[in-house]
C-alpha cells in the first residue's frame, strides 16, 4: 500500500505512458484507418476539440503542480538524512521539540564503540532544538505576520557541521566561542551570532523593509553581517550554511549556552552520533532502542533512529497530502472524462454516415473502435502534454510547508520538484481519461448497423 503511494517509483509511469502511446499508434496502423481521417475530423470540430483539451490541460496542470509540491517535500525529507548518522531522542519522543536528554546519558551513549572518534573525542553533535514563535511587525505585502522559527542550539558548530555534513557558503563564518558580539547600541545586550540555512536566509530576507533592502548587499537573501530583530533581542548573521534541499535549510544555528536560556530551553533535546557505516548506524539504532532483548543498552531509556528513518517518518504529512491530492485528481479526472464523453458522443452522432460507409467498405467493429479511441486519446495527449508543460513551469519555485511524524512538526522551506515521476503521473492520468472517456462512445459506434447509419 505504501509502495503504491511512493512517488519515488512514479517515474515508471513515464515509459508506461509512452508505451501506451506506441501501442495505440500500432493499433491504428493495424486497423488500417488513415490517420489523416481522424486528424481532419478533429480539425473540423476544432472548437469542441480545443475546449475538451483545455479541460484536460486544467486537470493535468493542477495535478502536476500539486504532485510537484508533494514531491518537493518527499525529496526534502529523503535527502536530509545521512545513513551513517543516528539521532537519539528521549524515550517516547518522535519529535525533537518534546525530547529532553540528560547530559550524563548523552556522554555515556557517545562513548559507545559504534560511534566514530575524531582524535580522542567521539564525533557527535549535542543539540537543543527549539521552535520559536516569531512575530513579524509591519510585514511586507503578501508576507506572513508570524513565523515558527526553528532554532538549533549547538555546543561546537564545527563538529556539528562535520556530523551533519554541511559547510559554509563563501564569505561566511561560524559563530564565535562566546556566541555573541558587542551591540552597536552599547546600551543594549550583546548581539547573538547565528548561522542560517539558505532557505530561511531567503525567507527572512524577504521580510526586510524596502529601506533595509536597498542598503543590503544581497537583495534575495540575508547575508553575513545582516541583523535580525527577534522581539527584544538582536541576532547578527555570522554565516550562511550550504543546506539547500534538506530540512536544515529552514534552521537557525546558534550557541546553545546563549540561545537556550533566552528562549527558556536549558536542556538538550537531541544527540546525533556519527558511525563508521550504514550498517553500524543500524546496529546502534537497534542497540539503543532494545530491538534485540539480549543485546540492548540499559543505562538509559532513549529513542533512536538512523537519520534516513527519522526523516522518512517526517514524510507522514506527505502521505496524507498525497492521498488527498490523488482523491481530488480522481474526482477532477472523472469530470474531465464526462467532458470528453460528451465530445465523442457528439462526434459519433455527427459521423453516423461515415461509420456506415466505413462498415460497408469492410472495416470491422474493432477498427471503428480503435479509430474513435485514437481520437479521444489524441485530444487527451494534447491537453495532457500542455498541462504537464504548465505544471512544469512551477518546477523549482520556493515554498514553505510543514513536515510531521505525528505530535510536533517542522516548518520547512523547499522547492517544488516536477520530475519524470510527476510528469509520468500527469501523462498516464491524461491517457487514462482519454481512454475511458472514449471507450463508451466508441463502443456505441460499433453497435451501429451500417444501413441504419446511412439512413441517419
Amino acid at each position, binding site marked *: 500500500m505504501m509502495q503504491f503511494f511512493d512517488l519515488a517509483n512514479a517515474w515508471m509511469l513515464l515509459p508506461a505512458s509512452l508505451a501506451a502511446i506506441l501501442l495505440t499508434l500500432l493499433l491504428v496502423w493495424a486497423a488500417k484507418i488513415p490517420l489523416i481521417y481522424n486528424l481532419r475530423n478533429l480539425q473540423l470540430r476544432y472548437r469542441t476539440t480545443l475546449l475538451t483539451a483545455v479541460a484536460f490541460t486544467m*486537470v493535468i496542470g493542477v495535478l502536476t503542480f500539486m504532485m510537484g509540491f508533494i514531491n518537493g517535500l518527499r525529496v526534502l525529507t529523503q535527502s536530509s538524512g545521512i545513513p551513517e548518522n543516528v539521532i537519539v531522542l528521549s524515550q517516547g519522543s518522535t519529535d525533537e521539540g518534546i525530547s529532553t536528554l540528560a547530559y550524563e546519558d548523552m556522554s555515556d551513549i557517545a562513548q559507545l564503540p559504534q560511534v566514530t572518534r575524531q582524535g580522542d573525542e567521539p564525533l557527535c553533535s549535542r543539540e537543543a532544538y527549539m521552535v520559536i514563535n516569531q512575530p513579524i511587525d509591519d510585514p511586507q505585502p503578501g508576507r506572513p505576520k508570524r513565523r515558527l522559527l526553528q532554532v538549533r542550539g549547538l555546543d561546537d558548530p564545527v563538529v556539528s557541521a562535520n556530523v551533519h555534513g554541511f559547510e559554509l557558503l563563501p564569505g561566511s563564518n561560524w559563530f564565535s566561542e562566546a556566541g555573541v558580539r558587542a551591540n552597536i547600541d552599547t546600551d543594549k545586550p550583546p548581539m547573538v551570532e547565528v548561522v542560517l540555512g539558505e532557505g530561511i536566509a531567503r525567507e527572512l530576507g524577504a521580510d526586510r523593509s524596502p529601506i533595509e533592502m536597498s542598503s543590503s548587499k544581497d537583495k534575495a537573501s540575508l547575508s553575513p553581517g545582516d541583523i535580525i530583530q527577534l522581539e527584544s533581542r538582536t541576532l547578527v548573521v555570522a554565516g550562511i550554511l550550504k543546506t539547500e534541499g534538506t530540512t536544515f535549510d529552514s534552521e537557525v544555528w546558534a550557541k546553545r549556552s546563549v540561545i537556550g536560556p533566552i528562549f527558556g530551553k536549558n536542556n538538550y533535546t537531541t544527540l546525533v552520533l556519527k558511525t563508521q557505516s550504514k550498517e553500524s548506524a543500524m546496529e546502534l539504532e537497534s542497540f539503543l532502542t532494545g530491538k534485540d532483548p539480549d543485546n540492548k543498552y540499559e543505562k538509559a531509556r532513549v529513542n533512536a533512529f538512523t537519520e534516513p528513518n527519522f526523516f522518512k517518518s517526517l514524510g507522514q504529512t506527505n502521505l496524507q497530502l498525497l492521498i488527498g491530492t490523488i482523491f481530488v485528481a480522481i474526482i477532477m479526472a472523472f*469530470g474531465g472524462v464526462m467532458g470528453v*464523453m460528451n465530445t465523442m458522443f*457528439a462526434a459519433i452522432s455527427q459521423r453516423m454516415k461515415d461509420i456506415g460507409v466505413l462498415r460497408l467498405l469492410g472495416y470491422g467493429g474493432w477498427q471503428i473502435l480503435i479509430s474513435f479511441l485514437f481520437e479521444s486519446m489524441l485530444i487527451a495527449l494534447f491537453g495532457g502534454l500542455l498541462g504537464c508543460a504548465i505544471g512544469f513551469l512551477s518546477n523549482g519555485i520556493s515554498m514553505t510547508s510543514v513536515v510531521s511524524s505525528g505530535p510536533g512538526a517542522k516548518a520547512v522551506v523547499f522547492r517544488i520538484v516536477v520530475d519524470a515521476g510527476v510528469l509520468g503521473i500527469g501523462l498516464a492520468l491524461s491517457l487514462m481519461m482519454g481512454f475511458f472517456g472514449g471507450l463508451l462512445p466508441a463502443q456505441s459506434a460499433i453497435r451501429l448497423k451500417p444501413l441504419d447509419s446511412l439512413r441517419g
Partner: protein
Amino acid sequence: MRFLNLIFRNLRRNVLRSLLTSTGVMVLVFVITLIWSILGFLDRATSEKSSNFKGIVTEKWSIPSQMPFAYARTLENGASREDGDVRPEDSMTWQFFIGTIDKNVVGFNSFVFAFCMEPRKLLTMMDELDSLPPGPKAELEKVVETMEKNKQGVIIGQKRLDALNKRVGDKITIFGQNYRDIDLEVEIVGTFPIGRYDNNSCINREYLNASLDAFKARTGKPHRLAEKTLNLVWVRVPDREAFDQLGTQINSSPFFAAPAVKIETASSGVANFLAGYKDLLTIFRWVLAPSILITLAVVISNAISISVRERRKEMAVLKVLGFRPNQILGLVMGEALLLGGIAGAISSIATYYFVNKVLGGIPFPIAFFSSFPVEDGALWWGAAIGLVTAFVGSIIPALSTRSIKIVDVFSKVA
C-alpha cells in the same frame, strides 16, 4: 412558463448529454464544496470575534508550550491583583497526554492523544461542544458527570475507539509516551458527539496530576516534566477591551517570569499554528479551486457548444416562427443555467448530508484539526456555483445563436 417547458423538453431530448454534463458538474462541485468548507472553517477560526473573546495563554517563545501547573490558578483568575482588574468569565486548562495502549507497538491502532482538563469545561469552553443541540448536550452532560465521579473515566472519540478496537465500558492502560513512566489506567465512559473530536480523548486533569504526584512518592524525585505539564490555558472575556486589559495584567504579572507567557486571541493562536501551512492553503484557494471552476465552465461550455451546433436548423426554424435572437439566446442559456443550477444544488446538498451525517466531517488532518464539517453555506453554494459557471460557460455559445442566419442554414439544407 411555456419558455421553461421548452427548456425542459430540450434537455430531455438528449438525455445522455444532459446526464454526462450534470455528472461532470456534480463531481466538480463536490470537490469545490470540500475545499471551500476547509478554507471557510480555517478563515472563521482565524478571524477575530467582536464579542465572547477567547484568549489563549501559552509559553511566550517556545513551541510546544510547557508551563508549570502552578501557573494555572493565577491564569484562571486572569492574574488579577486589584479590585478593578478584569477576571475571565470562564477558563480552562489544557495538559496533553500522548500514549499508547500497546507498549510494544506504537502505531495508528494503539495511539491515544488526550486533553487532560476539568471535565465540566467540555460543556462550557470547548469549541462546538459548548453549543450542542439539546439531545447530544444531555448525553455529554451525563458522561461529564460520570467523569467527575470516576477520576479514571475517559472519553474517547468514536473513530479512535474503532481504531483501538475498544468500546465504552472497557478498561485500558495508556502507557505514556511524552510522560515517560506515567501509565494511566482508565475506564472508557463515553464518546464525543460525531465530528471534530472523533480522534481525540479527554482525561480528568486530577488523575494525571495525581499520577505525577504518585511518581514522585514512588521514585523520590519529581517527574522530568513535573514543572512543564501545563500546555495551554484558555480564558473567556466579554469583549476586546477586557481582553486587552487582561493582556496587560498577565504581561505585567511578576508571577510568570520563567518561563515568560503570552496571551493572544484564539484566532491569533490558530493562525500561528497555521502559518506553516500558508503556501498549501494559498494553493488550495488560488490554484486548485479556480482551476476546478474553470474546468467546470469548460465542461458546460463544451456541452452547450455541441448542442448549439447540432441545433442550428432548429434555431433557424424558431427564427422563422418569430422568436427573437434574445429569446433564442435565453433558451440556450436557460438550458445551461437549469442544468448547472440543479446539478450543483444536488451535489452540494448531498455532500453536506453525506459528509456531515455519515462521515462525520471531511477527514483532512492539518495542524490540530483532524476533520472539517461541510459548511452550512454549501446548501446554496452548489446552486450558485452551477449557475455562475453555467452562465460563464454558455454565454459565448449562446451569443453565437444570435448570428445564425436563416438563409445560410436553409441554403445548406436545400
